[in-house]
């Protein structure tokens, strides 16, 4: 990373794209505090992460929700217990209310109620993603990190999931930071897109900005075989200004 600069605005869905191995996940993990950074400055909710004490960082962390690519559900616990872990750790709620809230979150992400007592190993790929999203939402975060939310889902499941993220974002007023490769997601739900290449953010802005850019990587990404169908499907009117 070199001279990287990226802003996420409140209440937006930011899609973060980049080729494999350019450091998308490293950047995400650095923001989450999982990897130490060598240089630079990260500000979350207006406070510089370097200036925070561990307990202050803990408070900030409670305002994050993270959904990992493989779900990262704890395999020894049921879905409901997974959703309740953050609540048990950070809040003092009665078991009845914790149950209600967990079931509410499970319902919000579109899982059937009987999935609550299943173990992660009994779930399909799409259900694992939904359960992981429910856990990410357990503490009603303001900022939601999604790592490739649609990877490994079939196109129908991926479209449903995009829709779910969009609905939840509107309902709960979330800010979403989404690492993705999925062009469909970018077109469907992202307000802005940031692209990482050559060790920095080469472009950040709406899809139109991306399409207008003449950076070779962006051109091959958005104008390649897979990207072109969106241009054709959308016609010339809304996407490229005359």
């Amino acid at each position, binding site marked *: 990373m070199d001279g990287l600069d990226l802003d996420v605005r409140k209440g937006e869905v930011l899609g973060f794209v980049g080729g494999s191995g350019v450091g998308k996940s490293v950047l995400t993990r650095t923001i989450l505090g999982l990897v130490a950074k060598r240089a630079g400055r990260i500000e979350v909710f207006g406070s510089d992460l370097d200036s925070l004490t561990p307990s202050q960082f803990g408070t900030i962390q409670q305002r994050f929700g993270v959904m990992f690519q493989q779900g990262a559900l704890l395999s020894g616990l049921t879905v409901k217990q997974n959703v309740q872990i953050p609540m048990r750790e950070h809040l003092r709620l009665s078991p009845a209310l914790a149950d*209600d809230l967990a079931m509410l979150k499970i319902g919000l992400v579109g899982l059937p109620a009987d999935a609550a*007592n299943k173990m992660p190993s009994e779930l399909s790929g799409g259900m694992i993603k939904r359960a992981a999203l429910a856990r990410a939402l357990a503490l009603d975060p303001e900022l939601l990190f999604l790592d490739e939310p649609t990877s490994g889902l079939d196109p129908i499941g991926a479209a449903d999931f995009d829709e779910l993220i969009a609905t939840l974002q509107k309902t709960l007023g979330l800010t979403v930071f989404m690492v993705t490769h999925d062009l469909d997601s970018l077109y469907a739900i992202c307000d802005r897109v940031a692209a990482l290449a050559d060790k920095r953010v080469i472009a950040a802005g709406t899809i139109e900005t991306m399409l207008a850019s003449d950076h070779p990587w962006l051109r091959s990404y958005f104008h390649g075989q897979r990207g072109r169908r969106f241009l054709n499907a959308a016609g010339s009117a809304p996407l490229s200004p005359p």
Partner: protein
Amino acid sequence: MSKPPQFSAETDGPSIRLALAGSWTIDASSRLERTGVALVPAALAGQAAIFDLGGIERLDTAGAWLIDRSRRDLKAKGIDTQIERVRPEFTILLDEIGARDVEIPVLRKGSAIIDILADTGRAMVDFGRDMFAGVAFLGELVTAFGKLIRHPSRFRGTSLFFHIEAFGFRSVPIIALINFLVGGIVAQQGIYQLKRFGAVNYTVDLIGVLVLRELGVLLTSIMIAGRSGSAITAEIGSMKMREEIDALQVMGMRPTDVLIVPRLLALIVSLPLLTFIADLSGIFGGLIAGWLYAGISPSAFINLLREAIDFQELSVGLIKAPFMALIIGLIAAIEGLNVEGSAESLGRQVTASVVKSIFMVIVVDGLFAMFFVSIHY
């Protein structure tokens, strides 16, 4: 810092107006819960309740859920509710929460006694299946060996020698050390017990017979079950996990021939060799202990040993070794092939493999002991 969740109730004609204020978010934790639970009793006196949400600064799903739950509870008690002065950004959330039914699925709880009986039954069935699978697998192996004898050119020699090195050669230090120590410990204890009868010299008989007949092969088998059996299960299991076994099968190779036969043969070759090393180091441990604790000089020890044992003693231990190798290899291979898709399953099967093979090694050793006694060998 935002204000904690709070509300005030005042009578407004026939109805009660609940003015909610502060931030109704989950970070208020128990405070939020207490305030939310207090909503219903506060409104019970009136005929209708008005929820005035004008003072709410922040609202999340937990807060919205508590407000919505109170409204439902009041409605159930026949009290009409309505919501006033709600900010537009909260409407979506409240509508969404209001549209949801939350039911907590109950976990089926059976009687403890029935569960224990069911578990016992299941364990017996599993044991039977294990036995059956073991015999079936043994049959498959025998046919694989049979085919190898007919087509010796298809034998995977490189693989065999690779595994002999891994299972046999690399185990030599640990096997020698363990047996040396155990031989020494047994000899030392024997000396103190036999001293009381003035029969210290019989320690040599004790060590010679015990190490050659039982200890050498038993300790070696247990070590190999832990060291190589687990490695076999883990290797085959992780190949199963990553569909490598299926890939082999699709390419027209039989996993038994390619993976299991060389490993099993390597164990069968290595274990007797290791047992011989174990016998030597066990006796050497006894010799050292005898020298230190009973003053039996090494040459005297060897002379006594020559009288105490003969080839028969050595052969009893060595005859058992290949059978132990077969048991360890079979169990390890079966457990490895039983691994399912997940990493937890791999860990479980490796544990099962080690526990089962150590158990079976000891059981079979007992059977051999009875057998040798009954034929006076």
